[in-house]
């Protein structure tokens, strides 16, 4: 049975009407029209659907939209400030941290969320954090380089 759910995404209110089984990822994509959050596995391993929930990176495929009322959700669409890319986006661009771009929104949100919580992560911590998500194209090397570059700028 469908239920009204209020989501707050990137500072904007979305009143949607969904079944309880609608995952946060599907609700963002289908009901809020925010298709930047991608589904790579729907069982919480690949991390492509990573969004920030009250600042924490979470797998949006492992939460139901109905659970997320009154929480602050941030997605890849909210990273840039108008024309101005977020330092993390800019660093991925400059360091060639993406190829097909499918995993990219998840990596961006993961790294932004983690560095906002802990800006001074060292190399090992960064790698440990990034091991949460899968990329099939880049071999990760340039993703790490990008995150390091963005870290310097975000500090």
């Amino acid at each position, binding site marked *: 049975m469908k239920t009204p759910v209020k989501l707050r995404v990137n500072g904007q209110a979305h009143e949607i009407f969904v079944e309880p089984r609608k*995952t946060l990822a599907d609700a963002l994509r289908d009901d809020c029209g925010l298709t930047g959050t991608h589904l790579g596995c*729907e*069982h919480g391993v690949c991390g492509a659907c990573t969004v920030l929930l009250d600042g924490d990176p979470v*797998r949006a495929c492992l939460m139901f939209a109905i*659970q997320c009322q009154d929480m602050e959700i941030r997605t890849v669409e909210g990273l840039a400030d108008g024309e101005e890319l977020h330092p993390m986006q800019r660093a991925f661009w400059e360091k060639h941290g993406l190829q097909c771009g499918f995993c990219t929104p998840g990596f961006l949100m993961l790294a932004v969320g983690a560095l906002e919580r802990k800006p001074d992560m060292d190399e090992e911590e960064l790698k440990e954090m990034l091991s949460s998500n899968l990329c099939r194209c880049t071999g990760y090397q340039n993703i790490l380089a990008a995150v390091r570059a963005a870290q310097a700028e975000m500090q």
Partner: protein
Amino acid sequence: MKPPRFEYRAPSDVEEVVGILTEVGDEGKVLAGGQSLVPSMNFRLARPGLLVDINGVKALDYIQRSGDRILIGTLTRHSCLENAAAVPGPLGRLLATAAHHVGHMPIRVRGTFGGSVAHADPAAEWCMVSVLLDAEIIAVGSRGRRTIPAEDFFRTVFTTALEPYELLSEVILPVLPDSARFGFVEFSRRAGDFAIVASSVVIDVGSNGIINPRVALAGVGGTPVRARSAEAVLAGSAPSAELFRAAADAAAGDVEPMGDIHGSSEYRRHLVRVLTRRALERAASEA
């Protein structure tokens, strides 16, 4: 991979949770962090008719000390335990090490201690730690509250002593003396994955050798197990490389692992020997 239909309730206190669970019986399932439940629902392996979301029951999210015991509320997120200072002494360090082995950061900020214990994955860190430390598991139901010793709690893969109308509300762990030392070693092929085999030990070395040795293993069968013969080998003896090898051999003899695509029975038994020795060495060298 979309989950089957279910009804959803989000009560705000324990009484209400228990009331709903009692009312719906087998159809109900508690949703805590959802990091194991939701994947199995997306695969349509789990098909609860009603999800009882306890994330709004803030009273279940706590870490408290009560005398020589630490009480962990079921809704405590894995990430809260990553901070060794959250719990005093060697127990805090042990929990922080174990917490760090749980999945990945986005899993740890969402997943819960009680949820993991109730899910009863035989490779899960908190299940092994519960058995290692003889945790008391508190179940609350309409007939009241009962305490279940960890070793009785885990029945087999994904199966526990919890009744459908019961909520796992708390796990109680003993505070470890400052002289206690631990070792926690996992083997997985890829970072953050469930262990193929994990071994954890706690020892306390006194003037008369090792006192209160504890050895627990995960990934060796339907439930985490205590390696009692290994503990017997260790008790009262002075730590040495030879002793640790003998204890590790005994641990390997204590298990009859189930094989699967991640590791045959034979390989798992071999890993028990290797990892238990390494866990003991780590404990002995822990500052």
